[in-house]
């Protein structure tokens, strides 16, 4: 019962409970807050897995920017109360989805349990600054420069696109 296992169990209970709460929340504001909880739990996981830079990015970008954007839209669409259940056109698809999800989970569990992903503890020890900013930055700007520039173009497209889509039509 190592410390890492205890941390893993506690964090995974929090993450899975928050995820189930997001999916089953009747009030979208609750769903947003539960998703922020899930993101914080995942950031803790990244810290355990020596991904410090990504952990901070997770909190800054996902929990800090994207979820705030969701909250803005929830306010604009005035969905802050409990939303009334919309009648599903195909009520049976809930149960088919649940059955397929259980099948998928059992299959994923079986695949993981066969040990195909288990590898002996790597011979190389983890470098001392494995997930820190400098090595990740070096990797990004030396070996992944083209994807980095492409994502900057992607962000420009997203900015222009969201402004064009969401503006009021010019009368």
């Amino acid at each position: 019962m190592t410390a890492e296992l205890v941390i893993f169990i506690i964090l995974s209970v929090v993450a899975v409970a928050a995820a189930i709460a997001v999916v089953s929340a009747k009030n979208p504001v609750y769903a947003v807050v539960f998703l922020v909880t899930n993101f914080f739990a995942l950031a803790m996981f990244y810290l355990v897995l020596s991904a410090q830079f990504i952990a901070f990015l997770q909190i800054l970008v996902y929990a800090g920017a994207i979820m705030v954007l969701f909250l803005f839209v929830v306010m604009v669409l005035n969905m802050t109360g409990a939303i009334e259940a919309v009648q599903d056109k195909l009520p049976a698809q809930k149960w088919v989805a649940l059955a397929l999800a259980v099948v998928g989970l059992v299959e994923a569990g079986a695949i993981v349990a066969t040990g195909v992903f288990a590898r002996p503890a790597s011979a190389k020890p983890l470098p001392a600054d494995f997930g820190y900013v400098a090595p990740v930055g070096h990797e990004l700007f030396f070996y992944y420069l083209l994807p980095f520039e492409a994502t900057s173009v992607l962000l420009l497209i997203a900015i222009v696109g969201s402004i064009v889509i969401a503006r009021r039509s010019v009368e």
Partner: protein
Amino acid sequence: MLPSSYYLALSAVLFTIGALGVLIRRNPLIMFMSIELMLNAANLAFIAFARDLRTLDGHIFVFIVMTVAAAEVAVGLGIIISIFRQKGDVNVDDLNIMKG
């Protein structure tokens, strides 16, 4: 050091919960949040493997995935808002203009 299969199992569970959310819920915002849940589950798998293989490529992938997710959320929420302006209510089952 925990074997990465633990983290993969957790990533699969989170991904399945996110997929369930997209399939079961009818509110577009909750569906969007479930999509973000799926993306985060994939991120967790990337980071677990990066630690296993002792390379930083997984971190770079997660960086790019976060950027793409941010861009997608911005545009998607803009679409939802413009639909709300035109129709007054967002119900994904009624958005079937593109149906053959």
